[in-house]
């Protein structure tokens, strides 16, 4: 340390003694002024290059060092570059040294100053032999080393690319000492990084091979850095060098052949081993495509034995340094096994798994951290999921570790190991932990929980609940992308009651005075879209919805307010009572400073006057389903955060089983809808009556070789009438001919019904093998009881119905879903003559049987009527009054009204019918299915009959929440009106 300048030491001492940052700054400023003065040399001529040649070597070095020191302290140094360059040009080594060091620290590669120094560097690089003959020190390489070191360290270097041929030459020259070679290798790497085209793999691979045979471990170490850098850019060109790398690795690991100075705590150069293993990781396929030649085969066998030796013989030793060095190599070997994947030996994979399992529960934090990190990589391999899941409990413990780094890794691993089986547990654990987690990790956790919950939700309601929990625990970290995704998913899954559930849940979540703004946003959006689904529930009417949302208005920011304004417009459109509440909000917001809010409220307020009601309806209709983008916004965020190749991203883009299932469900639903449509079209063509008493049941039950007698043609008109009558009356005759009379009595309570069917023998002889076959229906749960044998659907089964007696069939039904047809019943019997009869009939169990009248106020009726307009929720048909009846008068309309109230079991809504020519009614279709809360699922139905007395026609319109209900109610209404 004798080379130290006295002034520099004093300066450093002064800085060290500085009491405050201000004092330090003052001292630095003083020094900078002093140096500037020295460098500008008042009154004297400056040298050509701008340096002050009156400075002696000692002071120039001293001042430049001071500048370097000031720069390292974090102060800007924008002068003195000329002096630095003067030092570089110097022939004295000590000056050159300071010059080069300052050069690499102070200057950027693209600094214009660099141009002037280029030639000096080139000269230093190529000059061999001592600059001073009388020295016996190894001076040949000193200037070279300095130049190389400086080139390699100067950042952002474009100019020095011109020097690359000199660097490459220096690297390969026989005369270069190892010291120069190792620096040249890294220097070249620097140049290649800056512009990859400098070195062509085909030509350079031979030179590289030569370098890899060097005996000097320092040269090998830096050559491996160079090789790794080159090979990452183009792996295939350097594949032929694998045997060299394996050979070196073999020497180090198997033979422990290593110079003593390169042993680090008895481990042969761990850094070289790491570099070799990293290089080999660039070739994940070598184990599966290794049969090209014998040499390759041999080295692969050697590689496997090296890896397994590292795996089995690494031990914890007394010295932490030795242990660390060995484990560094071990983890690198495990990384190599991971890149091999399933093409590697299974034994190695299992060994690695076992070791990692041990590591994640050790006390040493570094090893635990790396164990978790590496296990997350291993988890990406096929077939490791089960063995990793065994450690789930341990990983969950690590999630509560005191160390944030360890927690992060545990979170990462949990994310990767999550699948449909353990998703609920892992997500619940994560949510529970989120409460305690500190800010640094929360955002990451929230994002990952959101992705997992979406990916592995078997029930989407759980997903919605989870996101709501996230908002309430850590709302600030729930980004817009997360709640946008909720909206997207809820909109795209109309099946089940997800939409109503979400609307109800969010309404409850937004009820408290204080709730997170994100909750307000998502609640506002969802209620605007699906609020009407829950509007009939207590405390959730449109007015309530408005009240609950509007309490947050004062505390909301502009974005939230803009969403709220749109929601208000939708509420006002649906519920008349909301309009007076919403109008003042719009009026106030017309003057809002925020352009978006101003525009929205002005437009919404003006809309009603400017457009027809239909156009307004159209404008405020709910959003169409979102396009199902392949990559969700959340995954994109994760990608941004973690980088392309992280285990987590790979995990996120793979669709989970639950996601696939959901997709299939929606596809199946779409298919089913198509099928239903096609079937309905076919049926429409087949018969012109909306509901036929004759089922199209196949006669397949009867033996084919015997002729069967069907329903006689002449009784069909009577049957139609009887069937239609029965649909709206509790008892009657369903079928009658010379042999058989079928009578029906039916009564209903809520979703349940009790139907008795009587089969009376009208003939003179007993009916043999008498059977009645009622097929099971998807939408009805049917319990059957009957006269013994009646239900036995085989050729010699059935019962005998004696003359003038009856067989009885009792059906107990419960409806589970909306439907629009009537269950089929086949009646099969033989006469004494052996004639086989088969009558395909339908039972008059139609949708209106399960209606319960609802009495609505006119306002409420109209509001719902409007909310249900359009799409498939509405059915409309015009029917002519039968030709033989008197003209339509008020008396006639009363009959129609009776049909609606008594027959269809609708509640008449008198207030909505100002003229006698309309009849409006409301009812609830009761089903026995339960929703998530255990309540029965019901469908609200509205019907309206409008008469046109002049034309003698009626228009029947039905609007319900369910397309099938609309259709069914319309059909029954039509046939009933025809009979009236």
């Amino acid at each position: 340390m004798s080379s130290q300048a006295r002034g520099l030491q004093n300066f450093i001492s002064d800085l060290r003694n500085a009491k405050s940052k201000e004092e330090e700054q003052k001292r630095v400023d003083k020094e900078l002024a002093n140096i500037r003065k020295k460098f500008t040399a008042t009154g004297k001529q400056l040298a050509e290059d701008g340096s002050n040649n009156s400075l002696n070597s000692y002071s120039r070095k001293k001042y430049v060092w001071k500048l370097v020191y000031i720069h390292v302290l974090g102060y800007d140094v924008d002068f003195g570059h000329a002096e630095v360059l003067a030092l570089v040009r110097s022939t004295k080594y000590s000056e050159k040294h300071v010059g080069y060091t300052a050069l690499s620290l102070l200057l950027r590669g693209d600094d214009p100053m660099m141009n002037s120094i280029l030639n000096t560097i080139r000269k230093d690089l190529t000059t061999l032999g001592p600059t001073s003959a009388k020295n016996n020190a190894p001076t040949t390489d000193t200037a070279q080393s300095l130049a190389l070191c400086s080139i390699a360290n100067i950042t952002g270097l474009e100019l020095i690319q011109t020097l690359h041929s000199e660097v490459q030459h220096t690297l390969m020259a026989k005369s270069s000492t190892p010291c120069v070679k190792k620096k040249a290798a890294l220097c070249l790497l620097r140049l290649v990084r800056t512009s990859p085209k400098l070195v062509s793999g085909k030509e350079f691979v031979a030179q590289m091979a030569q370098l890899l045979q060097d005996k000097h471990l320092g040269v090998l170490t830096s050559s491996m850095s160079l090789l790794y850098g080159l090979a990452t850019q183009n792996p295939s060109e350097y594949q032929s060098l694998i045997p060299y790398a394996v050979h070196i690795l073999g020497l180090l690991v198997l033979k422990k052949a290593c110079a003593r100075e390169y042993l680090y705590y008895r481990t042969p150069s761990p850094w070289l081993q790491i570099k070799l293993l990293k290089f080999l990781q660039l070739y994940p396929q070598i184990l599966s495509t290794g049969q090209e030649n014998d040499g390759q085969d041999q080295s692969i066998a050697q590689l496997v034995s090296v890896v397994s030796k590292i795996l089995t013989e690494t031990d914890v030793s007394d010295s932490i340094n030795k242990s660390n060095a060995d484990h560094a190599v071990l983890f690198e070997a495990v990384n190599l096994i991971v890149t091999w994947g399933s093409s590697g030996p299974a034994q190695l994979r299992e060994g690695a798994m076992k070791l990692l399992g041990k590591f994640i529960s050790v006390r040493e934090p570094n090893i635990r951290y790396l164990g978790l990190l590496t296990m997350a990589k291993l988890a990406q391999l096929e077939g490791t999921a089960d063995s990793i899941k065994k450690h789930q409990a341990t990983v969950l413990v690590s999630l509560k570790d005191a160390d944030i780094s360890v927690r992060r890794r545990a979170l990462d691993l949990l994310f990767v190991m999550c699948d449909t089986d353990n998703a609920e547990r892992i997500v619940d654990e994560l949510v529970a932990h989120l409460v305690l987690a500190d800010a640094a990790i929360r955002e990451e956790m929230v994002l990952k929980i959101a992705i997992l919950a979406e990916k592995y939700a078997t029930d989407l309601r759980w997903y919605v609940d989870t996101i709501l929990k996230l908002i309430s625990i850590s709302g600030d970290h729930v980004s817009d992308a997360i709640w946008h995704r909720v909206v997207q998913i809820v909109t795209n899954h109309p099946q089940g009651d997800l939409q109503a559930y979400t609307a109800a849940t969010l309404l409850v979540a937004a009820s408290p005075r204080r709730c997170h703004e994100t909750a307000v946003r998502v609640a506002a959006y969802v209620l605007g879209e699906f609020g009407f689904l829950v509007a009939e529930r207590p405390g959730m009417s449109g007015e309530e919805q408005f009240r609950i949302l509007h309490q947050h208005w004062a505390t909301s920011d502009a974005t939230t307010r803009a969403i709220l304004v749109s929601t208000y417009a939708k509420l006002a459109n649906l519920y008349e009572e909301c309009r007076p509440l919403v109008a003042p909000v719009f009026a106030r917001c017309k003057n809002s400073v925020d352009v978006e809010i101003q525009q929205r409220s002005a437009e919404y307020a003006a809309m009603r006057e400017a457009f027809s009601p239909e156009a307004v309806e159209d404008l405020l209709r709910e959003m169409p389903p979102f396009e199902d983008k392949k990559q969700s916004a959340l995954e994109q965020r994760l990608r941004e955060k973690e980088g392309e190749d992280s285990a987590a991203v790979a995990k996120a883009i793979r669709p989970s089983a639950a996601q696939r299932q959901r997709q299939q469900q929606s596809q199946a639903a779409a298919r089913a809808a198509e099928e239903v449509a096609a079937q309905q079209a076919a049926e429409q063509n087949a018969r012109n009556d909306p509901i036929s008493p004759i089922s199209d049941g196949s006669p397949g039950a009867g033996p084919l070789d015997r002729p069967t007698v069907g329903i006689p043609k002449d009784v069909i008109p009577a049957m139609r009438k009887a069937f239609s009558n029965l649909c709206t009356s509790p008892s009657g005759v369903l079928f009658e001919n010379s042999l058989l009379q079928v009578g029906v009595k039916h009564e209903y309570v809520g979703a349940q019904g009790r139907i008795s069917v009587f089969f009376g023998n009208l003939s003179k002889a007993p009916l043999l093998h008498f059977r009645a076959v009622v097929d099971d229906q998807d939408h009805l749960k049917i319990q059957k009881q009957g006269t013994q044998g009646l239900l036995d659907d085989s050729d010699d089964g059935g019962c005998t119905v004696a003359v003038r007696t009856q067989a009885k069939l009792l059906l107990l039904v419960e409806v589970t879903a909306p439907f629009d047809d009537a269950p089929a019943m086949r009646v099969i019997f033989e006469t004494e003559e052996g004639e086989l009869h088969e009558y395909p009939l339908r039972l008059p169990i139609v949708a209106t049987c399960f209606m319960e009248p609802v009495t609505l106020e006119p306002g409420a009726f109209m509001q719902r009527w409007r909310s249900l307009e359009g799409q498939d929720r509405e059915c409309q048909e015009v029917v002519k009054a039968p030709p033989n009846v008197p003209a339509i008068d008020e008396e006639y309309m009363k009959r129609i009204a009776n049909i609606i109230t008594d027959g269809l079991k609708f509640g008449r809504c008198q207030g909505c019918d100002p003229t006698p020519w309309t009849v409006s009614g409301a009812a609830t279709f009761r089903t026995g299915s339960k929703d998530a809360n255990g309540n029965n699922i019901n469908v609200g139905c509205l019907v309206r009959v409008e008469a046109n007395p002049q034309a003698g026609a009626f228009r029947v319109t039905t609007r319900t929440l369910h397309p099938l209900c609309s259709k069914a109610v319309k059909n029954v209404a039509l046939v009933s009106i025809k009979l009236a």
Partner: protein
Amino acid sequence: MAISFLLMVNKQGQTRLSSYYEWISLIERNALESEIIRKCLSRSEFQCSFVEYRGYKVVYRRYASLFFIVGTKLSKDGNDNPENELGLLEFIHNLVETMDKWAGSICELDIMYSLELIHFLLDEMVQNGHIVESNKMNVLRPLDLMERESQKAESIYR
């Protein structure tokens, strides 16, 4: 796969030595250094030696009042493996041992006062963000030569 920066910072957060192997502007350097040291200081010795911060994996080791901090870029573009963490950890120790061998037991003051020699030593061990030499003898030989030569009045090293 490379070291992005190497710092020696004391407990008060004063940087005693910094060496960057990628260009970071001065303002960013200051912010980075002070935030990293704050993070390191807040960690107990029972916690692991790795911190993830702003796209860097930071490996640190504490010797008395001095932190040795090595930062390496986390992978972003997919083909750049991060450095081996334990390897860096032991490299720091190797660096400290090398300095010890050169100046007895190294302390913060040594690093402050013999800045140029520490830089020289570091350049012998790390170049361009890669480890060049782990052999203490090889690292110290040029330093030794330089010191011996500077004693002589008429040497070119003067």
